[in-house]
């Protein structure tokens, strides 16, 4: 046959590969016959084409060989065999199957939940197109007391940076949402609704990727009388987001109130944006009201920059560090860049450097998730190596018949993969069921969907769990000697089980560490929440002085005071969780002129000290009975300390070039989170402030608030009445800590339960094996206590070793975390004793259930069979 007369080899091979073995010969014959005939009658090319077509037409069920194969001992059959054995093993040892299933599935479920949470945290603020080049300029204030880091920068900074530093492409200065007050009121007709606003410079929308739906990024915020609004607000106000450019809207917030023209509509910021705003005004509008901010030596707006694509942030950092020194002589501030999308996770600073924040808690949770999985894997390892003695014959026979070590390993690994797959299905069900509750705890809106991230974590976690649980038993069991296993000789290392003990010790060390950290975190959170802050925040409410209230504060407050149930009222310009101004403009007799000392500036109204129950150390507080409007000042003790003043009351100081008399000193109270120490501060009486605070009697809360509302409506009939509790602000301050505490409590509980399950299975198995020994001992006169001791002393020792390992490690970890707080609990001895005791009790409880049952057995029962 000439060479040309061959059918396409590719198709022939393909046919030979898929065709059912029984049909291969005659079908190939048929194909060849048709090919030869066509080659003769037509031509070879057509024949080859016909052949390929025939092969493809034959590729159908009925002709393709079945998956189980007709040839014996293929990979498929081995898998089939392993699956069968695995299922039989599950059936026979129901206890260990259930323990493994519970452990692995809960472990996987915890892991998936945490990974969803972590992913949601990681993508926050990452949606901006120029994320890699987007930075915020941070301000380090150097003082004798240390470095304070803040986001406030001079207003002209942004423009100057973009002009003078070539690596900086664009910049924006922003008065962020929540300045002075969380929101203002906006209206297109009569009714006002709440909305949050920002004041920005013209390039804002070129830096940040909030899509512009109407208008252009060049002129959307270029005019003082213009305003850009979000799509959501547009729909709330006008029921549409189209064709609104040029329409008017009314805006009411303190001095910025007025009518504005809509210049554009932007897409509502997505949920994963840290900044949520509805309106954007031109920064000039703000600066007109606060002209002092146009100077280089005052700081307030935030500055954002976008670097050139190839710019090295480290290099730019070094360039801008001393930038302010070129504008202000003797500036006490240095600047540095922080990646915009990293602010959310790392928002705490120590000594002018990033010192963590949420990222710490995310790390903690991730580690917990992995630890729980490892604990579950250890259960699987322990139970399957312990069970090995039951399978010695199986291993021996397989090896004698000729199974290679690799084949045996494959068998045991496939067992663990099988187990993990079943656990995976259960885990997914658990996640779906638990997710709504998890969302309530975390305050997130997570949904479980099979996107890239989920599929990736799912498959990686499942694969490694299966591998980790299976690899040790596989190595270990496949390495047993065929002859001795068949003879029934138990390998020495198997009966001693050192590695098993080691793993139990490891499991319990982890559990103890988790218990201890939960105790410490819980104590610290409770401490924070209940610490005497130096003022009383209970039952103190505040409302913002919008509209007519702004002008008529005094009359409003005097009428408010007359409402029964209102204990006291005051006004205030800040909140008590870290928003305040700062100034270096205080001087006094004996001050070293070279030292820059900055003071917190609190602008308050009458009765501030009384309403918040702040204690006086010396002197008196502001009072209507004296002429206090001008020339008076109050300090806190910390301020008096840094000034080194004795008998301060009656002495004079200079504030912003104006002489003031100290009338009183208050005891220190906390102005911000307990991560910070109490800073020197002064209280300055101002006639107008943006918030009215009032303390109420809790018994008549509802009726009092209703009366306050009626009064408020009298002043501002168009505005909605909104109030907030001071306490809630304070609670929000520690939201991430609180969340972590609650989550870690749950996950710690799960970890302990899984470890105990493993221990339970192990003890059950071991006592069952020693049942005959127990019977004989009892016949020879051993008492129940003696036998219980015999069985449990081993486990007692393991838990003790675990305690010895775990305590020092957890001491270091918890101490490290606590050190980040300026005010913290001390690590008490009973935290350690307590968590050790819990571990011992839980372990002994688990062991005791089994051993007492075994020790009480009637010896006849277990000895009669032989």
């Amino acid at each position, binding site marked *: 046959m000439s060479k040309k007369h061959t059918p396409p080899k590719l198709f022939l091979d393909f046919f030979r590969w898929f065709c059912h073995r029984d049909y291969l*010969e005659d079908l190939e014959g048929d194909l060849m016959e048709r090919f030869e005939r066509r080659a003769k009658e037509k031509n070879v090319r057509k024949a080859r084409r016909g052949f390929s077509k025939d092969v493809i037409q034959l590729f159908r069920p009925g002709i393709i060989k079945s998956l189980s194969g007709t040839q014996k001992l293929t990979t498929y059959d081995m898998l089939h065999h392993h699956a069968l054995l695995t299922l039989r093993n599950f059936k026979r040892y129901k206890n260990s199957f259930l323990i493994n299933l519970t452990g692995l599935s809960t472990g996987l479920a915890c892991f998936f939940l945490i990974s969803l949470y972590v992913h949601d945290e990681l993508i926050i603020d990452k949606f901006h197109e120029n994320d890699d080049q987007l930075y915020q300029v941070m301000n380090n204030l150097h003082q004798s007391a240390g470095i304070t880091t803040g986001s406030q920068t001079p207003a002209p900074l942004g423009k100057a940076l973009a002009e003078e530093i070539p690596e900086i492409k664009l910049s924006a200065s922003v008065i962020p949402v929540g300045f002075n007050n969380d929101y203002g009121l906006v209206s297109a007709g009569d009714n006002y609704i709440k909305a949050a606003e920002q004041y920005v410079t013209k390039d804002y929308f070129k830096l940040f990727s909030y899509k512009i739906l109407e208008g252009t990024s060049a002129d959307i915020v270029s005019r003082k009388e213009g305003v850009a609004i979000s799509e959501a607000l547009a729909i709330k106000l006008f029921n549409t987001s189209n064709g609104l450019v040029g329409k008017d809207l009314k805006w009411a917030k303190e001095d910025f109130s007025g009518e504005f023209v809509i210049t554009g509509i932007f897409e509502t910021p997505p949920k994963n944006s840290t900044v949520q705003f509805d309106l954007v005004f031109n920064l000039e509008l703000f600066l007109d009201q606060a002209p002092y901010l146009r100077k280089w030596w005052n700081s307030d707006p935030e500055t954002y920059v976008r670097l050139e694509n190839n710019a090295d942030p480290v290099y730019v950092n070094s360039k801008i560090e001393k930038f302010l020194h070129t504008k202000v002589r003797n500036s006490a501030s240095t600047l540095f860049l922080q990646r915009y999308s990293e602010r959310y996770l790392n928002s705490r600073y120590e000594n002018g450097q990033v010192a963590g924040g949420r990222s710490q808690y995310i790390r903690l949770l991730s580690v917990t998730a992995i630890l729980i999985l490892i604990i579950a894997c250890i259960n699987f390892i322990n139970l399957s190596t312990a069970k090995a003695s039951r399978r010695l014959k199986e291993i021996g026979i397989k090896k004698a018949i000729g199974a290679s070590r690799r084949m045996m390993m494959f068998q045991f690994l496939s067992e663990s993969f099988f187990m993990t797959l079943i656990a995976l299905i259960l885990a997914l069900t658990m996640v779906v069921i638990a997710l709504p509750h998890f969302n309530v705890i975390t305050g997130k809106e997570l949904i479980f969907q099979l996107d890239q991230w989920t599929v990736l974590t799912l498959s990686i976690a499942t694969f490694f769990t299966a591998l980790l649980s299976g690899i040790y038993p596989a190595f270990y069991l496949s390495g047993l000697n065929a002859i001795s296993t068949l003879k029934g000789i138990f390998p020495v290392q198997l009966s001693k089980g050192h590695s098993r003990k080691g793993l139990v010790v490891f499991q319990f060390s982890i559990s103890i560490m988790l218990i201890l950290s939960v105790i410490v975190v819980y104590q610290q959170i409770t401490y924070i929440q209940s610490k005497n802050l130096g003022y009383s925040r209970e039952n103190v409410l505040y409302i913002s002085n919008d509209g007519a209230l702004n002008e008529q504060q005094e009359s409003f407050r005097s009428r408010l005071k007359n409402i029964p149930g209102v204990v006291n009222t005051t006004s205030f310009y800040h909140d008590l969780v870290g928003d305040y101004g700062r100034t270096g403009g205080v001087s006094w007799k004996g001050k070293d002129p070279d030292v820059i000392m900055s003071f917190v500036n609190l602008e308050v109204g009458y009765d501030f000290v009384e309403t918040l129950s702040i204690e006086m150390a010396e002197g008196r507080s502001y009072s209507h009975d004296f002429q206090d409007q001008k020339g008076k000042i109050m300090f806190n003790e910390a301020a008096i300390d840094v000034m080194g003043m004795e008998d301060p009351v009656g002495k004079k100081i200079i504030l912003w070039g104006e002489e003031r008399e100290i009338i009183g000193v208050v005891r220190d109270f906390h102005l911000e989170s307990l991560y910070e120490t109490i800073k020197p501060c002064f209280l300055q009486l101002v006639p107008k402030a943006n918030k009215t605070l009032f303390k109420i009697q809790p018994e008549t809360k509802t009726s009092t608030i209703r009366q306050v509302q009626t009064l408020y409506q009298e002043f501002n009939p168009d505005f909605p009445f909104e109030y907030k509790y001071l306490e809630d602000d304070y609670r929000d301050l520690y939201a991430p800590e609180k969340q972590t505490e609650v989550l870690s409590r749950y996950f710690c509980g799960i970890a302990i339960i899984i470890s105990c399950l493993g221990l339970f299975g192990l003890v059950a198995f071991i006592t069952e094996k020693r049942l005959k020994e127990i019977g004989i001992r009892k016949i020879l006169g051993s008492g129940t206590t003696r036998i219980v001791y015999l069985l449990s002393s081993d486990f007692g020792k393991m838990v003790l070793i675990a305690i010895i390992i775990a305590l020092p490690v957890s001491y270091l970890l918890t101490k490290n975390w606590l050190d980040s707080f300026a005010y913290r609990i001390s690590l008490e001895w009973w935290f350690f004793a307590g968590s050790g005791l819990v571990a011992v009790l839980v372990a002994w409880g688990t062991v005791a259930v089994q051993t007492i049952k075994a020790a009480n057995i009637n010896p006849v029962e277990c000895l009669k069979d032989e």
Partner: protein
Amino acid sequence: MSKHHLGEFEEIVMLTVAVLHDEAYGIAIIDEMEQRLNRKVSIGALQTVLRRLEKKGYLSSRFGEATKVRGGKRKRYFTLTSYGKKVLAEVKEQRIGLWNAIPKFVLGE
């Protein structure tokens, strides 16, 4: 309905196998069908039906002798089993019954 249900294609294949008597192997069946019925038959469709009929017990098969053509591969000859013959006869009877039941005027004769 009879318990032996035959599809149209199945029926034709069995009839062709019967026509060819001892010479019914894959290619021969296709040729015969294409020639007599004037329709295209794909090798895949035919072969699956043949195997199915064999599994049902309507057909049986045996290998022929190896020859030099066909790449030295043997042919597989199909024959009707007696069960298969019975089923065919039943089908035929049903058809005839139907034909007979048609009133004369319907077909216009």
